[in-house]
């Protein structure tokens, strides 16, 4: 980032912490960028002449007489169609060896969409994964994270979803991504011949953690360009938001803020909401859908990060290993897509809602039966049947390697109902049972 002529250069820093520097300066704007000792920094506090800068890459080695230049603008990204197919770092600089992108310069972290200008999200995203399509249907304009322990294959599932989603653009925001995972995404997209519709902003584990704070805003600024100006459907993948929140807590700690639950800043909810709420369906047809990853520690969803996320996002997807069938499934109990009601029975067959609920209720019966079995009690005939049903349900519909159409998944469920239960036990509205209960 070049400096311009006639800019005032400051050389006297009063205070240095691990992430911030303070100095005396005049005429500085809030949120403005500065370059300190060749590193990018942002104004986070001004009291009189005393300006505090957050240095993204850390303050290691910065001397008190380091040169500081203010750039007179907030962090920004140059947007144009040339972004497609490119890989950038957290500052929007190319890391793929290609030339810098020219285009309109837009400040990142821009304003929110006026709620009355939004459209109700109502286009279903078919993924072929029945555990998602049937029980947790995704919708364009939705924001939903995977809540996953680090050992689960969330990156693989997310890549499958991204490629099957038929989005015009897929924007990957990688925060603290390991180099291996970064290459995984690159290869998957490359092999699928999709590289020209992918844009990546990547902060790997090699990069300083505070830089991550820019990644979601960079990715979403690019997304807004394609969704608003080009009316495209854009899918944004953010992984891993837990590492983003960790970076937030580092900065707030350095600024002496009082931590709230789990050492997270008190503003965590608003900080995360500002990102996730960029998901939107515009009336013009453009949309931004956000699929994120929030890694959990030992499955604990009461921790402040997943907890606040859950209150913001429109549901969450849980993966779980089902030992009965030795496969990873989409957990039907803990997963939820809040927008599924917008498309169930509308973009899908009318019996979808009732079939979904009945199938899950019966799966829950099996879970109860399993508990009974483990406690050494006798099982009823119904218990036995529900256990058999659960195994097939899990294998045919919940496993992440399932790839079937919306009609097929419902027919599969009806066949399972008939195989193991009576109509009264299934308890579906009569009009649907009459129509879909398999005939002999």
């Amino acid at each position, binding site marked *: 980032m070049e400096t311009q002529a006639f800019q005032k250069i400051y050389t006297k820093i009063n205070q240095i912490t691990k992430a911030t520097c303070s100095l005396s300066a005049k*005429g*500085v*704007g*809030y*949120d*403005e960028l500065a370059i300190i000792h060749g590193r990018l920094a942002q104004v*986070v*506090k*001004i*009291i*009189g002449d005393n300006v505090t800068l957050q240095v993204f890459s850390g303050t290691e080695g910065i001397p008190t007489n380091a040169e500081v230049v203010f750039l007179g603008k*907030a962090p920004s990204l140059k947007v144009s169609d040339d972004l497609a197919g490119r890989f950038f770092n957290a500052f929007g600089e190319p890391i793929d060896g290609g030339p810098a992108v020219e285009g309109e310069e837009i400040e990142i972290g*821009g*304003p*929110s*969409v*006026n*709620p*009355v*200008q*939004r*459209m*109700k*999200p109502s286009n279903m995203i078919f993924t072929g994964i029945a555990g998602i399509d049937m029980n947790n249907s995704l919708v364009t304009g*939705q924001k939903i994270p995977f809540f996953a322990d680090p050992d689960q294959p969330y990156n693989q599932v997310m890549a499958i979803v991204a490629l099957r989603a038929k989005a015009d653009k897929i924007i990957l925001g990688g925060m603290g991504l390991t180099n291996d995972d970064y290459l995984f995404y690159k290869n998957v997209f490359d092999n699928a011949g999709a590289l020209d519709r992918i844009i990546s902003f990547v902060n790997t584990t090699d990069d300083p953690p505070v830089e991550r704070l820019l990644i979601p805003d960079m990715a979403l600024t690019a997304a807004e360009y394609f969704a608003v100006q080009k009316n495209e459907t854009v899918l944004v993948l953010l992984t891993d938001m837990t590492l983003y929140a960790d970076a937030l807590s580092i900065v707030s700690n350095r600024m002496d*803020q*009082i931590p*709230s*639950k789990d050492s997270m800043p*008190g*503003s965590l*909810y*608003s900080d995360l909401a*500002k990102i996730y*709420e960029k998901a939107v369906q*515009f009336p013009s047809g453009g949309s931004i859908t956000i699929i994120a990853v929030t890694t959990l520690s030992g499955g604990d969803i*009461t*921790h*402040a990060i997943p*907890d606040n996320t*859950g*209150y*913001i996002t*429109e549901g969450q997807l849980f993966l779980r290993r089902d030992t009965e069938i030795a496969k990873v499934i989409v957990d039907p*109990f803990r997963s*939820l897509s809040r927008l599924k009601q917008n498309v169930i029975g509308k973009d899908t067959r009318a019996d979808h*809602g009732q079939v979904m*609920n009945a199938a899950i*209720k019966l799966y*829950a019966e099996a879970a109860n039966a399993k508990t009974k079995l483990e*406690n*050494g*009690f*006798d099982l*009823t005939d*119904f218990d036995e049947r529900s256990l058999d049903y659960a195994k097939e349900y899990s294998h045919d519909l919940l496993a992440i390697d399932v790839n079937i159409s919306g009609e097929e998944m419902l027919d599969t469920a009806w066949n399972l109902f008939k195989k193991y239960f009576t109509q*009264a*036990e299934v*308890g579906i509205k*009569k009009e649907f049972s009459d129509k879909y209960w398999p005939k002999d």
Partner: protein
Amino acid sequence: MTTNGIVAGIIANLVIVEVDGPVSQNEICYIKLGNTRLMAEVIKIIGKNAYVQVFESTRNLKVGDTVEFAGHMLEVSLGPGILSKNYDGLQNDLDKMKGVFLKRGDYTNPLENDKKWGFQPLAKVGDMVEAGFWLGEVKENWMAHKIMVPFKFTGKFTIKSLAPKGEYTILDTIAVLNDSDGKEYNVSMMQKWPVKLAIKAFKHKPRPSKMMETGIRCIDSLNPIVEGGTGFTPGPFGTGKTVLQHALSKHAEADMIVVAACGERANEVVDIFTEFPLLDDPRTGRKLMERTTIIANTSNMPVAAREASVYTAMTIAEYYRSMGLKILLLADSTSRWAQALREMSNRMEELPGPDAYPMDLPAIISNFYSRAGFVQLNNGKTGSITFIGAVSPAGGNLKEPVTESTKKAARCFYALSQQRADSKRYPAVDPIDSYSKYLEYDEFKEYLFQNISPDWLEKLLYAKNLLIRGKEAYEQINILGDDGVPIDYHLRYWKSEVFDFVILQQDAFDEIDSSTPIKRQKYMMDKVINLIKDSYEFETFDDVNKYFRRVINLLKQMNYSEFESADFKKFEVELEQILNERRVAQLA
């Protein structure tokens, strides 16, 4: 002379302003940033420094930027035209804003200055009047909107002149009032009021006694709320707080609904925006949007305005209550409001209370809840604000500060349970933990006796006991095993399941089941309680299980059918046949 100031410090949306004259706590000021003016509110004053919270992003703001003080607190404009509007937390009309994105400093008129309203006088020249007195009325949608003596007027006034029947704008003078010294005041159809202060233009606040019918069975038939009552719905995410709030806003028996979408998802507000103009209000035959006003300050909108939004909503509700109307105010979620307080408290470096919330959080919450209530106006008419707030407890833990503070203030507690939500038993209101303090009110007991049925309360309490006994039986069965307990335990458990599945569980997305009028609730309550009180005979526990699944299935089919329709009656006949298979003794 107005006070001015200059910016001396900026920490996110907290700005320190050095002032040149007097300022008051909660005074509004405008910070000039180029051509835009950013609205802010004074929240602390130390010497020459006023600490203001800015209702916008402070990006690019500089030390030395100028500030103008407005001389009043945050106010809303009250007058005809509020119904059906979509406002932000500061009462800006969202539909009047240009462009897809919200622009900083874009403040729009909440009302229409040039629209003419058909005014009908209700008072006459010479009448002695005071604040809140009905001078006349205009038709707003289907509602008679009263034009009142402004709430800011203190003391008695005489009407010197009053406009005749005709068409006027909200800015036209419709009355001239004289105070006791003969000084003249012009009154128009629009007035302003500071949101942080309660409107107290009523005679007194009696204990509420009338039931607020919500159409939601787990509320009406188990823990009813009253007109002018307060309640809250805490629940972990995914337990259906918002679905429940939306169901209330659609089906509750109120004249007007004010929805404060406070720091929640924008798409949830969009649901209301898109659905309500299309949905019919069965009470009036008009559209639901015609009785609804939405205050949308979603989670991505500025935090300080989020704090203001609940007050804006409450003030609008109080204004309409003064017209003698039944208002239902819904706030989703009050936890986000508390979090906004916490963010500010933190930036001001106040000593934190539990979970870093400000120490006075319980006082702020109880103050707010106390603004709801049933009132008798000075003219003898009554009005009410029923307030139901959603609470989003961190980590689903009901011992956190916002839930605990709210529990002290609200009279109805509708605890949403993760366990019920996981097993898809919606609405996931826990029937055992939840309560309604109004069931202890003698006035309310009398109302139920007179208006629903003499034995309604008795049945309701019977049901509560049944659910507890059913749960105990279930626990015993789980510990001792299906055949380790007498068959009677299974019977008891399954009877409570019948009540749970048929009365408590309700499909919010089914056209018929989503709302149950009280007459139908009474019918089903009688039906279910009677069949539960009957005695049955079984050989094995497995028979009990199978039998009651069939019973529940038929009762659910009844719930899905139009009340008293042919289908409904057909299922009922079928049900009786099943009951007769096993019934040995029938009640009464």
